Structure formats: structure tokens, C-alpha cells
């Protein structure tokens, strides 16, 4: 079943085109990341999914309905960017407020547990620390026991320990067969949390694939080594699977889809190479390459 459908959706703000004619479907049970640099159109897209913005052209459907209609909001939970919690309400009162909005809410204890806020139930929500505020926002998003969770840059500003804890909660959410849609420019997050990545840049979707495929297609691994041999860099460029070769003095940095094959050939051919390092690759490089190649129109 389609949770979200975008059909040739564009969004203009004045003369600035934030989203340019994008089309995609998100199915129930998927964990999807909208990945891209700032200004790529991720937040605009997620706000259209939630009915906070109307597309200039095209149609957006949430559960086959108009996302602006409150009735389609009973099964979703949302964490937005730059939102603070209200003043003069206790943590448990905030949670009860949200619980009252939904037809089948989770229990208060369950939500306090999810946010790790059991000890702060009677604290004023507004006075919580930054990290706890983020956890409260997550608990509020879960108040309606949602089938679909939307998160706009959920881990911005979180420390490493909070991120870990948060990712664990998300993983168990996805493990229950529910749908997760998040925007992020944290590549590790997209790779860890989702099974499908839509890479956005300049308002377009420039790649749509599982994280592994994105890494394979655009990333590869980086092999670094030192060598005094003349012409080796030039020769390697034509080897199968090699994407790029950078030379800095005696050091070569080879980007390849198959680091094992590259190393095997280097050793079997008897090249005099030292200080071999294999690393990097992954989504970070894929992302840099993707967004570099897709120059603005």
C-alpha cells in the first residue's frame, strides 16, 4: 500500500524553485531517507507530505488523501526542525495533550519510557535540557501509536550517546513493520536506519536506491599507498572497477568499486607498494560525488 505518493510535484517560493517536478511512491513498511545538502528541497518535500505546504504544481497524497486534512493525521507521528515545547506545561501534561489528539494513543508510561523521561514526568517541559527536549519531541511524535513516523533532521545537535539511543528506538519502530521517513544530511544515519535512500539536490531526486546500491554505484572504497613507480597512476586508471586516481607526491589514492581485486592485481603484478590503507568509501564519498556531479541548472 502506498503511504505517500508524489506526482510531478513542484514547489516555488517566489522565483526560487525549491522542488522541481518530483515523482515517487513510498510503500508501507519502508524506512526511507531523504538525503541531501542544505537547500536540496528535503524539508520542503516533507512539509508537503504533511500538508504544511501546498505544492505549486502536481499532487501529493498521504494514505491516498489530501495531507492537509486532519483526518489523515491520526496514523502519523511527526518530529519537525526548530520546534520548541510549550511553556508552563509539565512533561506528562504535554504527553497527555498529544495523547488526547489520537484515537488509539500509547499509554503515558509507555511514552515516558520511550523518551527515557520517567524521572522527568513532573518537570516543566520548557526547562528540560536540549537532549531531553529532543527525547520529549520523539515521545510526542509517538503519542498516537503511529504507523508512519516523519522526522525532519532528527539528530541535529545530538551528542553521540543520544544518537545511539535514539537510533535504537527507531530501529525497534521499523522492526515492527512500520514506516519511517526521515530527512538527513548525516549519511551514517541514512545508511544505518533506512532501506531506501532518495538523494536530493537542487530540488530534484538524483538517486533512488537501497544504501548498498548507492554505495556500489557511486561510492566504492578508497585504497591509499605509496609507490615510486613511474606511470603506475596512469595505468591503474584503466583497470576495471577503478573510479578515480589522485596523486600527491609519492602517494596514490585510488577510488574503486572492488578494493580486493585492485590489491590482488597490485601484488600479483609485483608492484613495489608500501603503507597500504583501505578505508573510507561508503556513503560519505558517494554523497560528495553525487552532489558534485549534479551541477545546478
Amino acid at each position, binding site marked *: 500500500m502506498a503511504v505517500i505518493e508524489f506526482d510531478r510535484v513542484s514547489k516555488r*517560493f*517566489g522565483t*526560487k524553485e*525549491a522542488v522541481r517536478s518530483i515523482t515517487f511512491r513510498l510503500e508501507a513498511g519502508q524506512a526511507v531517507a531523504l538525503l541531501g545538502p*542544505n*537547500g*536540496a*528541497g*528535503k*524539508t*520542503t518535500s516533507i*512539509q508537503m507530505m*504533511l*500538508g*504544511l*505546504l*501546498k505544492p505549486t504544481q502536481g499532487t501529493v497524497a498521504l494514505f491516498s488523501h489530501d495531507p492537509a486534512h*486532519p*483526518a489523515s*493525521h*491520526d496514523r*502519523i507521528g*511527526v518530529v*519537525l*526542525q*526548530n*520546534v*520548541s*515545547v*510549550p*511553556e*508552563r*506545561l509539565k512533561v506528562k*501534561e*504535554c504527553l*497527555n*495533550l*498529544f*495523547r*488526547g*489528539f*489520537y*484515537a488509539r494513543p500509547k499509554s503515558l508510561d509507555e511514552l515516558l519510557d520511550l523518551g527515557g523521561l520517567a524521572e522527568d514526568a513532573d518537570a516543566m517541559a520548557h526547562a528540560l535540557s536540549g537532549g531531553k527536549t529532543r527525547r520529549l519531541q520523539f515521545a510526542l511524535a509517538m503519542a*498516537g501509536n503511529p504507523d508512519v513516523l*516523519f522526522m*525532519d*533532521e532528527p539528530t541535529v545537535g545530538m551528542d553521540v550517546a543520544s544518537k545511539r539511543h535514539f537510533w535504537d528506538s527507531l530501529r525497534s519502530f521499523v522492526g515492527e513493520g512500520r514506516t519511517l521517513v526521515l*530527512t538527513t544530511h548525516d549519511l551514517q544515519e541514512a545508511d544505518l536506519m533506512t532501506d531506501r535512500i532518495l538523494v536530493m539536490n537542487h530540488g530534484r531526486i538524483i538517486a533512488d536506491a537501497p544504501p548498498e546500491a548507492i554505495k556500489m554505484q557511486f561510492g566504492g572504497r578508497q585504497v591509499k599507498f605509496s609507490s615510486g613507480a613511474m606511470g603506475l597512476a596512469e595505468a591503474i586508471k584503466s583497470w576495471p572497477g577503478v573510479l578515480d586516481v589522485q596523486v600527491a607526491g609519492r602517494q596514490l589514492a585510488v577510488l574503486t568499486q572492488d578494493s580486493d581485486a585492485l590489491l590482488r592485481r597490485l601484488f600479483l603484478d609485483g608492484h613495489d607498494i608500501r603503507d597500504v590503507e583501505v578505508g573510507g568509501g561508503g556513503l560519505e564519498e558517494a554523497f560528495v560525488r553525487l552532489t558534485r556531479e549534479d551541477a545546478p541548472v
Partner: protein
Amino acid sequence: MRALWSQWKADLLRTVRDRRFFAFTLVMPVGFYLIFIHIQHGTLQIAGTFWSAYFMVSMATFGVVGASVNTLGVRLATERKSGWVRWLRTTPLSSVGYALSKIFTQMVLSLLIVVVVFLVARLDQHVSLSAAKWIEIVLWIWIGSVPFAALGVLIGMAGNAAQVLGTMVYLALSLLGGLWTPIQVLPKTMQEIARVMPTYRYAHPAWGLLANRGIQWSDVLILAAYTIGFVALAAFIQRRMEAKPEAG
């Protein structure tokens, strides 16, 4: 309905905890009443009634206008600025539900202010009216507060300027509308200005009821026109604001 009830409970709770609200909207009208009633004698005759009753209505309307224009405006501006309103729009609570909750909360506050000011006048100045008259006046001040709630919503759209703007509008309307000084003692130009102020049109029927005059339709019509104007302007600004991008 459930969502509205949940929102209303939270709004009431937050309002009761708001010290600013008590300072501005309860202490001020009650304090002014006690001060000014002892400067002029309460038994003074004015507009067919006693000064003690006349000024009781003045201060009740002054308090309600303050709660609506200033306190409501600032509260709405804060909720908008913090992104909280945007978040609520993604929940099953409809924007109508949100607005109704704010209006119902405001109505409870208005009633509280009127009752407190009237109680003070009754206890301190022994203002005495028939039961029917008390109810009529309370009901008018209560229901007639609608245009000021609409003005509060409008001021709530002013963002960071809401606090200053709300206080200025509140004090200017109260002064020019004759809520502090009866317009009978003001120069003629000021009287003409007062007659087009919503605050004057709001208090005028209540003063009239004190002197056994009925509610005049011109007052109701002018207040209705103000309400429509404020709501239309708020809707226009709302649409303009939605066309602006967020970050990312």
C-alpha cells in the same frame, strides 16, 4: 471533539500558570477601580447612573480587552514563533479546533475578569443592581468581547513585535474609547474619536444597561464590522505567510 477538549484543558492550565496574565489582566482593572473610585466619590452621578457602577463597567471591559488584545496576542505569537502551531497542524487537531480552544479559553478568562471586578465593586462600593441586570451586563461584556479576541489573533501574527504592539493597542484603545476617563468630560474632538473606537462601542451598551437604556443596534453593528475587518485581515496575512519557505 476529543482533540479539542485535550487542547482546551492544556490551554486553561497554561493560562492559570501564567503570572503575566494575572498581573496584567486581573490586578490592573481591580487596582485601577479601587484607586479611581476613591479619588472621585462613587456616589457621583454620571450618564444616568452612579460613578461606582459606571466605572465598574469601564474596568471590567478594560480588563477583558487587555486579556484579549494583549495576553492572547502575545501567547499566540509565542506559539507561532516556536513552531508549535506548525507541529499541531500535523496532528488530528484541526486548525478550527485550535482556534476554538483559544476562543473558549479566552471566554473563560473574560468571565473570570468580569466576575472579579464586579465582586470588588459590589463589596467595596456596595454597587447594587437587580439580579437580571447583573446577568444582562455580564452576558454583554462576555459576548461582546469577540472582536477583541479577533484583534488578539491579528496581533498574534506580529511575531517579535506582538508584545509591544499588543500593549500599545490595548492602552490606546482603552484611553481613546473612554474606559479610563468618561468621554462626557473629554473635549469634543476626543468624544468624536471615542465614538468610532471598538472599546467605546463595547462598553457603551453596558453603561446603557446600568441607566435602564437598552442595547443600541449601532453599537452591535459597529462591533460586528470591526470583527469582520480583523478576521479578514488575519486570514489575508495568514495566506501571505504560508507562501514563505522554511529552512532546507
